[in-house]
């Protein structure tokens, strides 16, 4: 992916660039809001990592200006802890997601991919597929290899999250945020308990386990098709 990193702290910017390079992404750095606006309107990027506290135009201003100009590139805000106000204002201004600094590189990558999936899916009628699994988000229906499964609400939401992001990792943090609306990480492994239940349902007829565990990061459904 080609990313625009907007960060005025040179050290933090350098670290983000190297982290993203490790994951195989190209990055361009803009060190203030004005430069970010110019670059984001001139060149195509897959996503923007946007710091909130910036000279000239702050992150919220950048997000708002970009959306006003019709630039729909995914924006992930990077905020300091405690900036709950700014997080909410940022999302209102058009940012797609936020992460508290410092965020783990895989988490950043997973969030960007999730945003890209979300925007790519807008033409569906709530139906998503991965391999032999088909879910209908609106009708709350899961079918695997022609067998209709009955998944409780939370397990169903987890499966939807996995299929929506098929072939990329869904982190624990992402599950907590999208399924439970938790802005903290619980001490017990709630996600693991639920994944076990989703797997039990999916593999009840002896099928192979479609959910891969990415140790230390999260879970993924791989769709070879």
């Amino acid at each position, binding site marked *: 992916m080609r990313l625009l990193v907007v960060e005025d702290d040179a050290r933090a910017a350098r670290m983000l660039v190297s982290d993203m390079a490790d994951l195989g992404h190209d990055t361009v750095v803009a060190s203030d809001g004005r430069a970010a606006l110019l670059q984001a309107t001139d060149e195509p990027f897959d996503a923007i990592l946007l710091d909130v506290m910036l000279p000239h135009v702050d992150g919220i201003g950048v997000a708002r200006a970009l959306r006003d100009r019709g630039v729909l590139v995914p924006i992930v805000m990077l905020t300091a802890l405690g900036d709950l106000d700014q997080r909410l204002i940022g999302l209102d201004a058009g940012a797609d997601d936020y992460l508290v600094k410092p965020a783990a590189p895989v988490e950043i990558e997973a969030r960007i991919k999730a945003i890209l999936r979300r925007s790519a899916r807008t033409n569906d009628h709530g139906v998503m597929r991965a391999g032999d699994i088909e879910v209908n988000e609106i009708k709350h229906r899961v079918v695997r290899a022609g067998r209709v499964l009955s998944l409780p609400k939370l397990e169903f939401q987890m499966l939807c999250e996995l299929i929506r992001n098929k072939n990329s990792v869904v982190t624990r943090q992402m599950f907590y945020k999208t399924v439970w609306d938790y802005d903290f990480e*619980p*001490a017990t492994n709630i996600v693991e308990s639920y994944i076990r239940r989703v797997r039990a349902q999916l593999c009840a007829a002896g099928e192979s386990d479609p959910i891969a565990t990415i*140790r230390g990061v999260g879970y993924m459904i791989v769709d070879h098709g």
Partner: protein
Amino acid sequence: MSFRPRSLRAIMLLYVGVIVAVLLAVRGANYVIIHDALNREVDRRLALEAHEVTGDAQDGSIAAMARRIRTKERAHESADLMFLLRDRAGRHVAGDLRLAAIPPVGYSDFGDGAGVDGVTHGRAFVKRVADGATLAIVSDNDVVDAFDARLFQAQWVGLAVASLLFAGGAAAIVWQVSRRLRAMQRTVDAVMAGNLASRVPVDGSRNEFDRQAMAFNAMLDRIDALMANVKHAARDVAHELKSPLARLRTRIAALERHAAGTPLGDESSAILAETDQVLEVFASLMRLWEIEGGQRRSHFVSVDLEQLVHEVGETLAPVAEDAGDTLSVQTTGPAVLSGDVHLLRQMVVNLVENAIRHTPAATRIDVFVRATGTAVEIGVADDGPGIPADAHDTVILRFGRLESSIDRPGHGLGLTLVDAIARLHGGSLRLEDAAPGLRAVITLPNVP
């Protein structure tokens, strides 16, 4: 053993006591001296009169004395005196004084009992004169006694007024000093209770109390600033460490994936778990600072705790089941209050997780919500091993953990966070013995 008064009240009481005692002594001495001087003056006069009656050696006959007595009884300046002269045989020779019995020789006092007409209190002087005759002179002391009584009264009144003034002054000083001290005590109590912004009131008079209050306030300002510095330093350190730790974790996670199935696999899994624990501490600390900062109060909305607790119960039931425990939720109806829904959710999750993590398998965990008119109680009770009562406060403290749980997962911040969230909502967390087990109860004021 010596008595040393310590309290201001005792010092003032002692001071007033000493002053009154000294006043009493001075006034008493004063009275005694004047009283004696008066009596001596009366005696001196009686002696003088007696001398005038007995006359010089050349005319000391009884007849001459009787003559002089009669002269004196007619004279104006000795109208308050009465005379009596008796011869050797006790026969009346001269004088108006009638007495049942002659008082003893020398000076003596007499009262009503002496039966002297018109004299209630008197002083008598009896003297043997020539030829075995006896001369008695009596002075009517009513005027002197009246003066003496007034003098006595005046001393008492003076003493009473002075004592009242001293006692009143002392009470005023005690009240004034105590008032300022109480104001300072209130501030100290408030600071101890966590309200670091509390200051001693200053009235601007720049008197010694004001100056002390200002010095005290300046000290509190300084402590405040130092604490802010420490907090900032801790935050900076945590923040600086979190970045490299997050990167470290990413690399360890990658290493673990590559090492899976090799001899290094288990080791790297353990390292990853340890790193996650450190990161968890950082996340909890930062969360704690965020809560203690109080800014989240601006995001309070109406929250139904009954619904929230059912939600959390539903979420954690599978986790409890995996741990072999049973989780049940009991509520009595809607329990709506104003709060931060994310924090309240974290509070309940932390409490239930605490019960799941720190009890053996097959523990029964009951979550309940009770709404009364003024408060909402949220409780989590288990029938596990519990916590000794004397350790209840310790486990709520930051990093406060039981000796027996050091080898178990957890970082000692779970209940601290719960307590901080309860406090942010104006409530409190208390731990109780559920006999058997532990019951954690949060009481939140019910102000929707």
